[in-house]
């Protein structure tokens, strides 16, 4: 084809050529990394908790006053909530998935082992928890009411029976068979026997630091004897809104000596999820907007410079047309020219994208950029370049051969 004359012509427009190529290269590097960050965030926030999240309500509650023992108060509250119209079940706990605050602990199989096998979160619950959360018990049994005790949080946390998640069972035991086996949740050497396994339950934290054990949870049959309690409530289908509205009043009527934060005190689990991933979603949206605007600006830049070149070369185009070049020849000349420049740009840009990613992963918690993103970015920018140059190129192809004779 006519690549040689194009290259010769480009040599006469070094500044413009380099500018377009540079802009494409920078855009590619930024867009690749931004897309990659978006994917990372989206995959993080689309994780499931293992719960049946619809119709669940979470309450943050703190008892006030001189009381030092909270067992009876918690029981009264739970009875009141469970008796409410529209409520299916409820329980009190120290934490729940996506709460962003909870208890983490090392798990051992040998009590005095120096190093724990993995980390897990501890959920202190009762026999109503599985039903309220809607998690699936896949092996063993649930706690029974007699096993649930009141526990002083400053004392030992080891309890004789526990329910663990499937992910934790697989991490601890090579064959994944954990039922009836013993695990150790403290260094004091008190054993806990696994009586049940649930399919999935996420830890309270959404950050990357908990990423290595985000499905490791241990359920313990105890209520912490503390003034701070979270209540989780499952409403009957269609009743969530009504229960959500009625709960604060019911709790205050049951016992005035409490504080429920006005904001985030009583919230639906949809709210809990939204709140937990707000920054991740914000970052993904921001990156998306930046990508879009960046591509638009680059396209506008290409249109601007190409139009100028077309305007500058009207006479030459006229001469070529007069010498027999077809409209298609002119069109393909400009399209090819742009393609060559863009090709140079994406080659430099790919290298830049990898360099930038290398630097980012040294500075931030990030993974290595996968080739898919670079290829996607390259194709997108080449197409963008072709689309942007189309209008100026069409205008060029419409230059009439008469132009050759004008001026002079």
């Amino acid at each position, binding site marked *: 084809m006519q690549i040689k004359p194009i290259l010769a012509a480009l040599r006469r427009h070094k*500044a*413009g050529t380099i*500018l*377009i190529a*540079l*802009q494409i290269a*920078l*855009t590619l*590097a*930024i867009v690749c990394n*931004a897309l990659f*960050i978006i994917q990372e965030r989206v995959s993080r926030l689309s994780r499931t908790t293992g719960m049946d999240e619809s119709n669940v309500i979470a309450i943050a509650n*703190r008892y*006030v*006053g*001189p009381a030092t023992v909270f067992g009876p108060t918690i029981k009264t509250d739970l009875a009141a909530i469970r008796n409410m119209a529209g409520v299916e079940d409820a329980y009190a706990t120290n934490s729940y998935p996506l709460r962003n605050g909870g208890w983490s602990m090392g798990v051992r199989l040998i009590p005095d082992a120096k190093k724990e096998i993995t980390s897990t979160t501890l959920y202190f619950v009762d026999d109503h928890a599985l039903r309220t959360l809607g998690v699936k018990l896949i092996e063993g049994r649930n706690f029974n009411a007699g096993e649930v005790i009141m526990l002083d949080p*400053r004392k030992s946390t080891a309890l004789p029976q526990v329910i663990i998640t499937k992910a934790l069972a697989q991490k601890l035991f090579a064959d994944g068979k954990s039922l009836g086996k013993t695990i150790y949740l403290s260094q004091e050497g008190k054993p806990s026997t696994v009586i049940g396994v649930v399919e999935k339950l996420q830890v309270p934290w959404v950050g990357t630091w908990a990423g290595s054990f985000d499905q490791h949870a241990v359920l313990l049959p105890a209520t912490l004897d503390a*003034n701070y309690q979270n209540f989780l409530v499952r409403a009957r289908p269609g009743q969530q809104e009504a229960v959500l509205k009625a709960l604060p009043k019911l709790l205050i009527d049951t016992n*005035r*000596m409490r*504080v429920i934060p006005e904001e985030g005190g009583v919230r639906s689990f949809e709210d809990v999820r939204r*709140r937990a991933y*707000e*920054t991740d979603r*914000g*970052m993904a949206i*921001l*990156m998306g907007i*930046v990508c879009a*605007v*960046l591509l638009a*600006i*680059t396209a*506008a*830049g290409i249109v*601007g*410079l190409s*139009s*100028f070149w077309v*305007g*500058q070369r009207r006479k030459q185009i006229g001469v070529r047309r007069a010498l027999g070049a077809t409209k298609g020849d002119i069109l393909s000349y400009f399209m090819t020219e742009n393609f060559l420049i863009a090709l140079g740009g994406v080659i430099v840009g790919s290298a830049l994208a990898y360099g930038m990613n290398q630097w*980012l992963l040294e*500075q*931030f*918690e990030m993974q290595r950029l996968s080739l898919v993103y670079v290829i996607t970015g390259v194709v997108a920018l080449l197409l963008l370049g072709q689309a942007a140059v189309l209008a100026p190129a069409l205008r060029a192809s419409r230059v009439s051969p008469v132009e050759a004779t004008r*001026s*002079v």
Partner: protein
Amino acid sequence: MFGYYLELAMRSMKRNRVLTALMVVAVALGIGSCMTTLTVLHVLSGDPMPGKSQNLYTPQIDPRAMDGYVEDGPMLDQVTWIDGMNLLRSKRGEHQALMTGGAMTVQPSDGSIDPFYANSRYTTADFFPMFAIPLLYGRAWNASDDEARTRVAVISSELNDKLFHGEDSTGKSIRIHGTDMRIVGVIGDWRPTPHFYDLNMGDFANTEDVFVPLSVARELLLPRSGSIDCWGPGGSAEESLEKASCVWLQFWVQLDSPAKAAEYRQFLLHYVQEQKALGRFERPARVELFNVMQWMDYKQVVPGDVKLQTLLAMGFFLVCLVNTVGLMLAKFMRRSVEVGVRRALGASRRAVFAQLLTEAGIIGLMGGLLGLMLAMAGLVLVRAQPAQYASLAHLDMEMLVLTMVLAIVATVLAGVLPAWRACQIAPALQLKTQ
């Protein structure tokens, strides 16, 4: 002459409206995004105690057992009761304070207000003079109140507004955690950002609402929050935390010159060696002494996402600038004829160059103004975010000036190459082709 250049610039911009608008918008988007993220970064990495931070220090010593010792591993960020008290009593600095945080119930005497939780700080008396805290009413307590465990409290002006409608409440009592305390002072406007003296409360946490002497807090076992790190045998029961091998207190000391800081570091090292000799410490003697800004840096207070956003915005701005260079090149070269005529009529290269740069500067000015508006809109969006620091994101004078200077300087620089190319045009050639 400048007026003439301006007129020429305006005329040329009007002739090429779309191209001009494109350049202005590109500069504005770049500037706007840069300023939004830089403002957030600027606020978050700001000095919480301007003028004083270089004299405020927090020490690090390592009282842990040999178990799990790693050479040059991270030290503990807080101190034990015993070490804290020893450092406090040695009085080596201008001021020193030992403190921890908590949250307590406040039961208003006014029955119409429900009981609520207020964040609190339990500290020794020097906290107030050391951090130069402005007092709206009354005074802070003093060392003898610490000794005597006087039940006094200093409250924030927000709490004062809520409970006493902003009136002078000194001398009145406040019921905190079931105990009546006498209010001796009300703090004025004071919110150090970041919350440097105790990052466990959240890096950008609000200032506490109630301040109580540490000795009183321990006597009444007021609820404590924040982080606690224990090692070795023995529990961490709340009643006996004074004896436990746990770190849970923050210690700050004011040292008014680098020489004094060096002296203090020596003192700390001696202290650690002495404790080792006594058998209390096991690990090799090592101390650190951070001033406020070094501490912020060490604790990586600025969130990674904010840094990432700033980098992204800068990359974005760079692309916008490259784009502007390209468009300006097109624009200036298109005016070859005009330039040729001006040159032929006697304008020097310098004059043409200056005129073209004026035009670039005006584009920068317009882009800057539009960018400023975008930045303000961007900051409104940032403030709507749930993050703890969100409410702090405001454009200050410094950033405002920086925006305009950056916009104009950047665009003028972007205009240098196109303008230079344009004045290289040989006038004769241009005139001939017409």
